[in-house]
């Protein structure tokens, strides 16, 4: 079961997580990730997320597919918001269900790392000094690259 959504509305991480294992008894592990807009310390007043409609959904589905090829997963769910977001608001949800925890953790982190470098989203931050586009981080490329070598874990 793979679900991928791009939406401007907020999401209910608890409901998304429950849906991953609802009515099943073969799932032993559910790992999830929620990304949030950081504000105060960075002076960010608002964040706007632009995306490439059509390609975004395809890219997220491909990333979820690749995770399912690398690990034995029972469910993957990815939700990414677009549009204007305030500090503290949720940006992205990734949830992965598997028989064992090693697979669930690895696949969840893999999806986030690949999403960060392959899914066409762009962040623009609004601060007191005006708006500026967030630069891509080298550490994100490195995080994604380590999966090229990593062995599958149980």
């Amino acid at each position, binding site marked *: 079961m793979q679900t991928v959504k791009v939406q401007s509305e907020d999401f209910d991480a608890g409901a998304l997580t429950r849906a991953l294992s609802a009515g099943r008894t073969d799932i032993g592990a559910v790992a999830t990730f929620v*990304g949030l807009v950081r504000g105060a310390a960075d002076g960010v007043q608002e964040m706007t*997320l*632009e*995306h*490439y409609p*059509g*390609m975004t959904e*395809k890219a997220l589905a491909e990333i979820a597919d690749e995770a399912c090829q690398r690990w034995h997963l029972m469910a993957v769910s990815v939700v*990414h918001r677009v549009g204007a977001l305030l500090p503290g608001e949720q*940006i*992205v949800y990734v949830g992965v269900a598997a028989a064992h925890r090693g697979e669930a953790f690895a696949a969840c982190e893999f999806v*986030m790392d690949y*999403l*960060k*470098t*392959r*899914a*066409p*989203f*762009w*962040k*623009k931050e609004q601060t007191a000094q005006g708006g500026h*586009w*967030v*630069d*891509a*981080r080298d550490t994100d490329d490195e995080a994604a690259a380590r999966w090229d070598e990593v062995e599958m874990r149980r």
Partner: protein
Amino acid sequence: MKLTVLYFASLRELLGQARETLELPDAVDSIGALRATLSARGEAWGRLAPGHNVRAAVNQVMASDAARIGDGDEIAFFPPVTGG
């Protein structure tokens, strides 16, 4: 050859447009050739020349400069992605 070309994020703002439809000679048959054609417009368009870290997609799939393009394709140019 008719192409739809999309621009996103900082590149969209820099170029002042989000999309255009182009009629181009069939010789412009790769992403690299299209970059050369567009950057020749001068000024901000120079950003599409090599060395400016602008990524490309052909029909919504990430593409290198060697990727072939043809009539009816949807091409996109954008900065490195920053979602998540």
